[in-house]
């Protein structure tokens, strides 16, 4: 072994060790937010932050079904108790014993800074008289006994006013004292995790805690089941699904490819050596992604299985094409330049993914580029020197020659390809309306049944649909709250006109300090209030003496001052506030005002314009996500076009002949058109991942076309056929995945790789070239 070979070997081993160490320290994630854009606009950032880390992302809805209602309620109570003590759970509620005593105390204590009715007018003689009169009427009504106890402290009814504004439009149904679905068949719990929804590991822990709380609680009654749903649960489920699929598919892929190679090579040594570039490529790819992104997405790993089919090509070329008499060095001189050009065109294609603006896709790009480069380098610099002196595989030139004759026998190959390309274009033109699926849901690995369960539980709990939201911003929490209050005034008017069904605002849980101070200033001193109250009570059936606690409370409110966020710490009020007021990744504070149906969207937009609140926007969450996806889809399309152009430029620079560039490109373009037409004809609207698949078709196909272009002999044709078979097999297996993202890539590349090889052979018929080894 030469010194140079030893150096290459040493570098390879050290690089593998470093990459292995990097992988050992890698975090693997699976939440779909990786498939959201990297550089969102301000509004999009609010949305993406909310989806990743917001309060909504932390909620797990739990359903208990089976058994009888009493058993479900008992299980629900036991689970609530166990989860309340769990370290991973921030809060749990099941409706039982939801007396909200502490919250009620807080609202009572701070009612004068919380109630919107607190104005100077309300504490004049006339104001007091009308407010107290109303309370007396309430006492006579059936609801009277709910308020009777606080009337001496709160004769003007501020607590009622405060509670009314915080009460959700609809409360969940109850069965046996705990929350249940309206049909009573499932008991419901709401669990809020400490960790964000995008922290998949922590979400998995929370799910395990819920599961074990259920098993402990439900030990006695059989037939009971626990259901979970929520953004974090989705992430965990998606990761498990991807993991399962990736493991199964990688194993299947490996077995099929290995079987194929063993059948052809008839040499276990050749099989083992041929896998070296594949394994090196996979390790390099994962390590590169981990270095570049700080974590690796499960989808990237799934995609990695396809590298088995792609990277194994290089060693196939080396083993099959190399002349047994002349050895590996000869192959390096003769074929390496073509392989190198093939690798470069592939890189040009994958580079498009790097600029797609989506971290999930950029990962695929980095993975593919690093993986292919590593596999090619290992094939070039390490593998030839590792071949044993008497390395031998079965001679496949007879098979190659037979294939060459078969292709040569097809008349007018170019016309067939041209005709198919036009036919495919016609199909695409016919289906042009439904070619692409621009809905973000098309990437969602979660089943429709799971999503329906989520919608059902959400509805049962009366959670707002969280679809239409007005976002306002501020440099700090106070200014965001002030903006929310100004917006709220406009919305109050719309609600009074019946144009909206109501709204939620963080300022109801925590009014801005300015508003609170204004309310405190409205309160009269004890010296002023006492004579006014006496005057106001004249003729009313209540004596002033009974309302002494009222005088004391007003006085105390003034000395207590404003309510801070700390005051509501650990209460349901804080929970309510958290989802509506939060800091985004840019450090800005956002207040979300959730709108309830019915909803007059144009009127809301007008109200936003006239409110003068800077940066206020109406978000239609679902539409916004679709727009966002469609936006970067376009960007990915442009990036792909640029990638294609880069490939053409690269070919020009190397081949220096327009006609050669044309005959290399023709099979690729025809192949892409035919694959796209196959999807369209099958009624599949293509997603972003089909586009990635098409890029791969170009990358893989360019290798084939370049080999045909440089001239082929029987062995080259055989090597291409084998390389193609492994690619089709591994991507074909990927297309069996139930995950839409992997399925899309698999089906596209399996079909595409096959047709581009056939097209390349038809466009540039295999001819034994005398100069085969001299042309690049």
């Amino acid at each position, binding site marked *: 072994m030469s010194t140079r070979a030893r150096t290459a070997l040493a570098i390879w081993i050290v690089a593998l060790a470093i990459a292995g160490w990097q992988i050992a320290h890698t975090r693997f994630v699976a939440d779909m937010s990786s498939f959201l854009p990297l550089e969102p606009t301000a509004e999009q950032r609010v949305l993406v932050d909310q989806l990743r880390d917001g309060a909504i992302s932390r909620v797990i809805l739990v359903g208990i079904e089976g058994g009888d209602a009493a058993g479900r309620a008992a299980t629900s109570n036991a689970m609530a108790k166990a989860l309340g003590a769990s370290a991973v759970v921030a809060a749990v509620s099941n409706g039982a014993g939801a007396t909200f005593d502490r919250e009620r105390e807080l609202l009572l204590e701070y009612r004068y800074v919380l109630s919107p009715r607190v104005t100077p007018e309300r504490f004049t003689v006339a104001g007091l008289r009308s407010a107290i009169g109303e309370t007396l009427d*309430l006492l006579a009504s059936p*609801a009277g*006994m*709910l308020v009777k106890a606080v009337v001496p402290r709160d004769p003007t009814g501020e607590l009622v006013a405060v509670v009314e504004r915080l009460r959700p439009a609809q409360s969940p*149904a109850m069965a046996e004292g705990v929350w249940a679905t309206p049909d009573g068949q499932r008991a419901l719990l709401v669990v809020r995790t400490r960790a964000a929804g995008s922290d998949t590991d922590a979400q998995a822990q929370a799910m395990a805690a819920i599961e074990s709380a259920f098993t402990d609680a439900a030990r006695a009654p059989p037939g009971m089941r626990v259901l979970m749903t929520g953004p974090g649960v989705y992430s965990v489920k998606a990761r498990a699904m991807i993991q399962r699929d990736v493991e199964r598919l990688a194993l299947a892929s490996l077995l099929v490819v290995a079987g194929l190679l063993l059948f052809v090579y008839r040499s276990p040594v050749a099989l083992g050596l041929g896998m070296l570039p594949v394994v090196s490529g996979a390790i390099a790819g994962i390590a590169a992604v981990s270095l570049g992104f700080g974590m690796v997405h499960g989808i990237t790993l799934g995609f990695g299985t396809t590298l088995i089919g792609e990277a194994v090509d290089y060693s196939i070329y080396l083993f099959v094409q190399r002349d047994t008499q002349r050895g590996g060095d000869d192959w390096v001189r003769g074929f390496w330049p073509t392989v190198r050009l093939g690798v470069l065109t592939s890189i040009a294609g994958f580079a498009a993914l790097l600029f797609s603006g989506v971290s999930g896709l950029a990962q695929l790009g980095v993975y593919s580029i690093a993986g292919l480069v590593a596999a090619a380098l290992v094939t070039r610099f390490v593998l030839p020197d590792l071949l044993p002196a008497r390395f031998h595989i079965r001679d496949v030139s007879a098979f190659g020659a037979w294939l060459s004759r078969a292709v040569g026998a097809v008349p007018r190959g170019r016309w067939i390809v041209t005709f198919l390309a036009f036919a495919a274009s016609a199909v695409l033109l016919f289906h042009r309306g439904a070619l692409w699926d621009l809905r973000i849901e098309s990437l969602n690995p979660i089943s429709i049944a799971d999503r329906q369960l989520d919608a059902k539980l959400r509805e049962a709990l009366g959670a707002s649909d969280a679809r239409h939201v007005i976002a306002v911003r501020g440099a700090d929490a106070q200014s965001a709250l002030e903006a929310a209050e100004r917006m709220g005034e406009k919305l109050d008017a719309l609600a009074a006109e019946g144009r909206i069904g109501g709204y939620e605002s963080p300022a109801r849980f925590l009014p801005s300090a300015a508003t609170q101070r204004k309310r405190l200033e409205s309160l009269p001193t004890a010296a002023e209030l006492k004579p006014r109250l006496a005057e106001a009570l004249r003729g009313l*059936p209540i004596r002033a003496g009974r309302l002494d606690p009222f005088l004391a409370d007003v006085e105390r409110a003034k000395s207590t001052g404003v309510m801070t966020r700390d005051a509501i710490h650990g209460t349901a009020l804080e929970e309510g506030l958290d989802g509506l007021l939060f800091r985004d990744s840019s450090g800005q504070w956002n207040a979300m005002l959730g709108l309830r149906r019915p909803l007059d969207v144009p009127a809301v937009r007008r109200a936003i314009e006239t409110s003068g609140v800077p940066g206020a926007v109406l978000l239609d969450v679902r539409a916004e996500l679709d727009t966002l996806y469609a936006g970067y889809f376009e960007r990915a399309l442009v990036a792909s076009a640029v990638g294609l152009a880069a490939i053409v430029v690269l070919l020009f620079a190397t081949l220096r002949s327009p006609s050669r560039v044309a005959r290399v490109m023709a099979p690729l373009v025809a192949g892409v058109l035919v694959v796209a037409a196959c999807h369209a004809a099958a009624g599949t609207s293509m997603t972003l991942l089909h586009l990635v698949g098409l890029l791969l078709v170009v990358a893989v196909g360019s290798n084939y076309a370049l080999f045909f272009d440089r001239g082929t002999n029987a062995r080259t044709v055989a090597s291409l056929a084998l390389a193609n078979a492994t690619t089709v097999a591994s991507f074909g297996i990927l297309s069996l995945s139930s995950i839409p993202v992997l399925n899309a890539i698999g089906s596209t590349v399996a079909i595409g790789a096959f047709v581009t090889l056939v097209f390349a052979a038809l466009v540039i018929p295999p001819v034994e070239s005398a100069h085969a080894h001299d042309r690049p």
Partner: protein
Amino acid sequence: MIGRSVLFACLLLPAAAQAYGVQELFQSLAGDKPRHATFQEKKTIALLDKPVESSGELVFTPPARLEKRTSKPRTESIVVEGDIATIERGGKRQTLRLSQYPGVAVLIDSIRSTLAGDLKALTKTYSAAVAGDAALWRLTLRPIDPSLGTFVEHIEIAGSKGQVRTVEIFQADGDRSVMTLTPIEP
């Protein structure tokens, strides 16, 4: 002679009282036709110097719908159907689930179950005792669950034959209300 008849009466009376029991009363109350009545209600609240009076209409539709429409001193209504109570007051409507307001539920259940003649539902919450006879009976209800005692101490419902005439609610804090019903024949 007189002594014997007195003795006879003494022997007879408890037997007669026993003969008219809760079972018989509820059999006479049960029916599947809607019932209408006007009501006068007087609430005595310690906090207030004089009782609060109100009046309106009460409609019961078997098996579980109860409407109380107050016309004086101000218009308001409470409609209870199953577990859902809808209160309309001053142009505002609010819906609440009775199961979340045990204090309200306990009151409504007493009246509703009695009007429905549903002894089984009633005795889930209350122990029931009846005095008098079919022509003039008095039903006394006491909550079984001691925690409900903070809302209601006991309830006395009186009537004759299948008609409820008065409902008196005695609250634990000494406040009480009396509702007098006058049936409207359809």
